[in-house]
């Protein structure tokens, strides 16, 4: 045993000394704090850039087959489908110039997608392979919209009963609720100074961590906050995240993950990071961001990301982070450090 261990150490030493002295000695950079630390791999994507080009990489989801779907506004392939090792499995979509929001919904055992297109001013429901199932135009029924251009949807959340909540995050900041057939029910939020109002309602998700009280979490990005509403649109609370231009909330297990587009203190300077909150809405980790503390604004500390735009959490707690306006970079993968 001793001899074998000695040999292994020797050969490993020789091999690394001869062939890869620097790389083997170092592991990938670890980001984050507390119980949420990750090794970042910026070369996860194996996509050939000449075949599968991307522009802004806006959002990602994992489907029931464990595939990772990426939404980009490059109309040569709006959706790239990856396996968890970064290999391209499929690509589709040429009709979404403003592809921005991607939400996956389990519709009676079948995965369906909701795409928010902020150039088309529409929300499009598709099958998992891109067949169009429904299109929502601007919400005339609200009597708030002079024309379709005023409606610039960024995100959707789908309730278990199929109700569709659309966040008009680059438009009038309303949340518009429809039934599963796309019939208008109500709207709430909107611009204003009240606690219930929103400023850049960039994301929305269902929060069912409290099973008896399902609610909606909505981004108010320019206010550096999430706001909680009940399923009928009644404002409940604000989760302040000083300094963090949070994109959409993503809930997995007990935790909430969000890409932070940029640090408030360094706007327009590629100062993004990723934040993770526990069930009590307390920040437990900032990946490439400031160590959580009770006071002060959060900010980027390591230039690992430029403008992160979404986080996808897979079934093994790996994270995938895709970015807006970041040199057409493909998504990064972050593996948890146990």
């Amino acid at each position, binding site marked *: 045993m001793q001899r074998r261990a000695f040999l292994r150490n020797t*050969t490993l030493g020789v091999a690394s000394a001869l*062939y890869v002295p620097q790389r083997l000695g170092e592991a*990938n*950079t670890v980001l984050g704090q507390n119980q949420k630390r990750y090794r970042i791999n910026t*070369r996860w994507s194996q996509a050939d850039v000449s075949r599968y080009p991307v522009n802004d990489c806006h959002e990602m989801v994992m489907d029931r087959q464990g595939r990772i779907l990426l939404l980009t506004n490059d109309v040569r392939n709006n959706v790239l489908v990856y396996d968890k090792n970064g290999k391209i499995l499929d690509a589709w979509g040429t009709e979404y110039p403003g592809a921005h929001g991607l939400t996956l919904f389990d519709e009676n055992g079948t995965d369906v997608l909701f795409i928010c297109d902020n150039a088309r001013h529409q929300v499009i429901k598709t099958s998992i392979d891109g067949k169009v199932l429904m299109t929502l135009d601007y919400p005339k029924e609200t009597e708030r919209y002079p024309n379709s251009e005023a409606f610039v949807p960024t995100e959707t959340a789908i309730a278990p009963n199929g109700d569709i909540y659309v966040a008009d995050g680059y438009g009038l900041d309303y949340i518009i609720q429809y039934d599963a057939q796309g019939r208008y029910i109500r709207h709430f939020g909107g611009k204003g100074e009240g606690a219930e109002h929103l400023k850049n309602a960039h994301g929305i998700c269902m929060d069912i961590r409290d099973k008896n009280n399902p609610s909606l979490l909505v981004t108010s990005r320019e206010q550096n906050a999430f706001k909680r509403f009940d399923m009928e649109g009644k404002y409940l609370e604000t989760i302040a995240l000083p300094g963090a231009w949070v994109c959409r909330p993503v809930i997995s297990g007990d935790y909430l993950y969000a890409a932070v587009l940029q640090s408030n*203190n360094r706007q327009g300077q590629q100062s993004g990071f990723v934040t993770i909150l526990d069930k009590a809405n307390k920040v437990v980790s900032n990946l490439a961001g400031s160590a959580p503390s009770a006071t002060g604004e959060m*900010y980027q500390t390591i230039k690992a990301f430029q403008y992160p735009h979404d986080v996808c959490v897979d079934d093994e707690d790996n994270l995938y982070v895709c970015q807006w306006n970041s040199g057409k970079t493909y998504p990064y993968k972050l593996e948890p450090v146990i």
Partner: protein
Amino acid sequence: MSRFLLIFVLFSLVFSSVFAQDTFQLATPYLEYSSVFFEKKCTVAMTLAEPGTQIHYTTNGKIPTLKDPLYVAPISIKKTKTLKAKAFGSGFYPSEVAEATFFKAGIKIDSINHDSPNPKYAGSGPNTLIDGQGGEVRFSDNCWMGFNEKVLTCTLTMSKPHRIKRVMIHALSNQNAWIFLPQEVEIHLRESASNRFTSVDTVIKELGIGINAEALNTTAIWVDLPRSMKITQIILKIYPRAEIPDWHPGAGTGAWLFLDEIKLY
């Protein structure tokens, strides 16, 4: 043995390609202070909330290295000088340099009158440019006044005559936000000889402006008078850049001028 070696070589190559290392740069540390303008001293903290990193700093104008003082606690600055700070950490490229110049109080200006700023950027009130507050690069901070007319005329008045040698105008560059340094400053002085205002002098200074779309910083524009003059009133005509340069999306239109303080020394 050779088979083991081969296996480990292959393993090493696979390992190194799968886990190829990315080395990232640390973000620029933050300098924390109440204002870059101070009466007696200014206390400055330096932070980067990334465990395992250190900040080294200089006050001699040089770029900090590991040999320069290690930041451990807030420092006091008592003279006009420039602080530079840089973060270092194992496994990371060192940060860019954080920099701020601190200004000891000059001659007391008792009142100021000037053309109105754009109402969106009206600072903290009529005394914004002489209140000793400023130095943030965020133009939305209320230490700044924003102007977008062809010229800004400011009249500074002192309650009694003072000897003046230099004028300092503290301006912002944020070229992404169409904010440029001024193009020209004219100074009209009312010289006080035996308490009589006798003459008006003009000083013109052309200001060089670099092409740098990322430029985001504050600049002290120093204008030396031809000689030390005893005065009670001084009029500044500050000209915003009349045409934004060709390389900028705003080419040909007038630039914004943002000021947070004017000082006399």
